[in-house]
């Protein structure tokens, strides 16, 4: 049972992982100038793992320049104990270097396997295609800025276009309801909607409790803790329920849509659909967007309830207000219009998350890096647009006095 250090390779005579005897031989060069000419002796393992040492040896070579005419130089490979393509390449490079210094190198004592290796390497012209990567930082900054502005412009156009396409498909569904991919819709309703209920409930409950607690703390100074219920009701129903739900769904489903469609694009599945005459918008995008438009208002409703429940819990703990009184106060202090205001935003939010998510998915190119970039962009863009939408609604509705 031989250890691989000592196994010998019968083909080339060199050992498998190092020199005979299990000790790696350091690569070395020995230059000698004699009366009968110059000679260079090569020793050791000229293999890829010793390349650094080999390069040093070649650099250290003090051979001077031949003065008159090409001087004959014998390159003796008898002392070589191991050779691979890297080593052979460096030997050939060394010969070229010696030729440029005015020598005429001639290799002797090369084994047959080595000769075949030299021939194999010389057979291939060694062209290179180097790319110059010099550019100034300031120029890069300006270029990045420009590209960002252009890409925002592109985004606006493409999102609008996609809204148009989805709307067309939906209108088509009104006329031809049998073209709806019902199973797909239900699948996404389950994953984007039903499976999100627990996490939405939990975070809304906690935030409701936090808001309630903070309001009580602050209003206590004015002996107005009781009005914290009003504050929670209005905040939760108008803003917090919607925002929390949308951000959670953007992270959960928006990212998932991008990743799903992106992987399909990477594997040419979307192209296969087109080749079979199947419209990807109708098959992939519409069910997802529609599922969100149905699910998000429902999830927001649940979120609102849980937010208020969190507040009720704290109200009981801190102010000893029981549930009955809490609900009565809510009814008196919080108008129903706040609930409608919150809910009216939800279909638009769903549209944003669905379209941005699927659009970014369709933009994924062939690499894993591209997938990561677009998933990230999908989540960031949808959350950003949702918040802008929220602010716009807030300003508009307040101006209208609603």
């Amino acid at each position, binding site marked *: 049972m031989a250890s*691989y250090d000592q196994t010998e390779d019968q083909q080339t005579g060199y050992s*498998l*992982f190092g020199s005979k005897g299990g000790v790696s031989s350091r690569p070395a060069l020995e230059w000698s100038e004699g009366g009968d000419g110059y000679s260079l002796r090569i020793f050791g393992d000229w293999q*890829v793992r010793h390349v650094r040492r080999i390069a040093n040896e070649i650099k250290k070579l003090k051979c001077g320049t031949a003065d008159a005419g090409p001087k004959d130089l014998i390159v003796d490979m008898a002392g070589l104990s191991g050779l691979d393509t*890297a080593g052979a390449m460096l030997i050939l*490079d060394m010969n070229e270097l010696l030729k440029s210094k005015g020598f005429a190198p001639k290799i002797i004592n090369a084994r047959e396997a080595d000769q075949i290796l030299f021939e194999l390497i010389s057979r291939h012209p060694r062209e*290179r*295609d180097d790319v110059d990567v010099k550019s100034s930082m300031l120029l890069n900054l300006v270029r990045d800025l420009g590209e960002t502005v252009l890409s925002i412009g592109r985004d606006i156009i493409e999102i609008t276009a996609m809204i148009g396409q989805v709307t067309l498909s939906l209108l088509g569904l009104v006329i031809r309801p049998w073209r709806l991919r019902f199973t797909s819709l239900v699948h996404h309703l389950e994953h984007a909607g039903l499976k999100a209920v627990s996490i939405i409930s939990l975070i809304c409950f906690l935030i409701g409790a936090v808001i309630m607690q903070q309001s009580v703390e602050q209003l206590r100074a004015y002996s107005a803790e009781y009005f914290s219920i009003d504050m929670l009701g209005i905040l939760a129903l108008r803003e917090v329920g919607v925002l929390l739900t949308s951000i959670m769904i953007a992270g959960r489903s928006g990212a998932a849509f991008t990743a799903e469609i992106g992987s399909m694009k990477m594997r040419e599945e979307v192209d296969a659909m087109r080749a079979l005459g199947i419209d990807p918008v109708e098959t992939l995008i519409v069910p997802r967007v529609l599922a969100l438009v149905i699910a998000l208002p429902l999830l927001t409703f649940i979120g609102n309830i849980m937010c208020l429940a969190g507040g009720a819990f704290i109200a009981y703990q801190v102010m000893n207000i029981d549930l009955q009184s809490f609900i009565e106060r809510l009814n008196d202090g919080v108008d129903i219009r706040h609930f409608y205001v919150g809910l009216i935003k939800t279909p638009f939010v769903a549209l944003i998350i669905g379209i941005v998510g699927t659009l970014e998915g369709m933009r994924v190119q062939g690499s894993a890096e591209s997938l990561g970039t677009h998933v990230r962009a999908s989540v960031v863009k949808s959350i950003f647009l949702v918040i802008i939408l929220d602010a716009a609604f807030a300003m508009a509705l307040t101006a209208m006095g609603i």
Partner: protein
Amino acid sequence: MVALETPRLNPIIEVRHLHKQFGAQVVFEDLNLDVYEGEVLGIVGQSGGGKSVLLRCLNGLERYSAGKISFFGQDTAQMSGKDLRHVEARSGLLFQDGALFSALTVLQNIQVPMREHISLPKNIMDELAYLKLALVGLPANAAHKYPSELSGGMRKRAGLARALALDPKIVFLDEPTAGLDPIGANEFDMLIRDLQRTLGLTVFMVTHDLDSIFAICDRVAVLADKRIVRTGTPSELTKDPGHPWIKSYFCGERGRRAQGTAQTTS
């Protein structure tokens, strides 16, 4: 034409009583195989018969339920982490579609094993990578392309260049010529044969390419009925199949055509 006759010596890899199943489905059981130094071993078998699974088990990418795999006489299951890395640095693996790292260019892909296992000066690393690129038949301008910009055949060649980056002692190839044009497939055969002769490269090749088998395989192992039913040289298997599947594989129309071509070109 069969490659240089190599005297059978110590086996590099010994597989004994290997058993692998996915759930209730048994892929192979009591599988025995030897891979000898310096030989080109072809693995053939039905599609879905477990050839790729066997390849993955040998490379430690799949766990096996029972049996023993030894590299150079040492049981891989008992090897220390350091020894395993030593073995990994000395073996190359070509996946079916190249499995290139999508975020790196072709040149950078080839340099991954170099960076990982040894430290090389940058200019030599580039020179060596360009050499490997040329050896597998890729043009120099492919160096800075990303895998998504390459055709299937070019991806495979780039994968081969990466597998050969450190001049491994044994290289595992999963259907290397599938998808290559006949010129490219022939160049591949010649490259493998040259590397075998010059570096003593051992090749473990899962393949369906009858032309490759007759051109460069020293031995062929047939995976059928959940184990290796026969091993032998391609001509031995043609003359004396001993198993109905082997007969239709080697002696069917394609087999006879491939053999005829191999004989006329040798």
